[in-house]
């Protein structure tokens, strides 16, 4: 089957695929930044004691986790103009992806912080460290080590999810591949080129996670 692949057409569309690849990279990077900001805020709100501040964060995380990204994307795409907010599709896509991934990041960061054994904090207290010193010197360094791998895992999900933006006509990797399908009636070539682009991103992120894991794993705690 792959023997019949028309590589000449694939080469011809290489500039467009490359543009799509860069667009996917940009969308993912921008959404990653947004997701981290939202994730840290939502996490901070869920672990602090004030109930009325905690409630909105919990509702946000649960509402996002229980609904599909595509429905969230359409919610914003068809809903924002209703509120008089007219944004380019790419902007809507970045907002939707950030909101979506932010909820998962919040959960990841939270479980990272909660995984620090209570004794560590108590040991810090008994040596006379203040709350901020305990956070900075004991909790966060350890939490960071266990959090980075799942954060990269979620970033892989984010990169793949960005393909859904093609459905609201944002031109990225998936959409660029569809150009070959539509212009030349060659869906196979288009999809193979698209899949290769995502494979590159996947293996880059996966090996980054692996390298981090090797260098920073805490002995005895995986």
């Amino acid at each position, binding site marked *: *089957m792959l023997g019949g692949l028309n590589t000449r057409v694939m080469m011809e569309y290489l500039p467009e695929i490359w543009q799509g690849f860069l667009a996917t990279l940009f969308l993912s990077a921008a959404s990653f930044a947004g997701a981290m900001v939202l994730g840290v805020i939502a996490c901070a709100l869920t672990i602090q004691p004030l109930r009325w501040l905690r409630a909105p964060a919990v509702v946000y995380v*649960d*509402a996002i*986790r*229980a*609904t*599909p*990204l*595509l*429905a*969230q994307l*359409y*919610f*914003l*795409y*068809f*809903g*924002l*103009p*209703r*509120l008089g907010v007219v944004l380019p599709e790419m902007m809507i896509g970045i907002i939707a992806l950030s909101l979506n991934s932010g909820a998962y990041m919040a959960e990841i960061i939270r479980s990272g912080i909660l995984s620090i054994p209570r004794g560590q904090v108590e040991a810090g207290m008994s040596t006379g460290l203040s709350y901020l010193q305990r956070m900075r010197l004991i909790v966060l360094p350890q939490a960071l080590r266990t959090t980075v791998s799942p954060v990269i895992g979620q970033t892989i999900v984010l990169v*793949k*999810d*960005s*393909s*859904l933006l*093609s*459905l609201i006509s944002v031109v990225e990797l*998936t959409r660029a*591949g*569809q150009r070959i*399908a539509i212009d030349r009636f060659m*869906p*196979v070539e288009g*999809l193979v080129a*698209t*899949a290769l682009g*995502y*494979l590159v991103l*996947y*293996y880059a992120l996966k090996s980054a996670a692996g390298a981090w894991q090797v260098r920073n794993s805490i002995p005895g705690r995986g």
Partner: protein
Amino acid sequence: MFWFYLERVLGYWPVLLKGLGMTIGLSLLSLVIGVAIGFAFGIIRAGRNRWLSRALGLYIDLFRATPFLVQVFIVFFILPVIGIELSAFAAGVVALSNMAACFIGEIVAAGLKAVPAGQREAALASGMTRAQQMRLVVMPQAVRIITPSLVGQFVLLIKDSSVVSAIGLLDLTRAGWLIVQSVPNGLLVFGIIGIGYFIICYPLIWLSRRLERRSQAAFL
């Protein structure tokens, strides 16, 4: 104004209901197939045949690396090229259960590896065959370990089923997309669609968290 739109959206209840039925049916069918194949994948991945395990690992990685939307297009547009013509529903089930099998396979393999080697050796020492070791000793313990992640995976499966609306299958998301064409209030329409998904998914998320807490307690 709000009530006017709400009435119009709810006037489309047959479409909404049909979409809901499709989402549930598609997810359940893919879940059953995906779990069956996924466990087989997991056993091979954790098994002793290194080359078979590596080949399968490569296959699984391919589907873990690419977006589900691309996989749906591959099943829907590439399989016909090699002579397999599928309806949109069949293509949805194939794509969804294949992806579920890949993710579940890795979960099952991790679960099998997490069972201490002494358990298998003890089973071997008491004269069990390899099939008996797996069925009676290793798998029951692995299932206990992986149940929370499996339930989490079911939630992902239900949510990913929304993507098959891209090939025209009338699921819950597609129903919303159709309704929003004639009722121009995206917030309301997709708010209702979101509530539909929430009702299906949230109990599972809750169950997954509960199971996780219980299994952590069991290992302390």
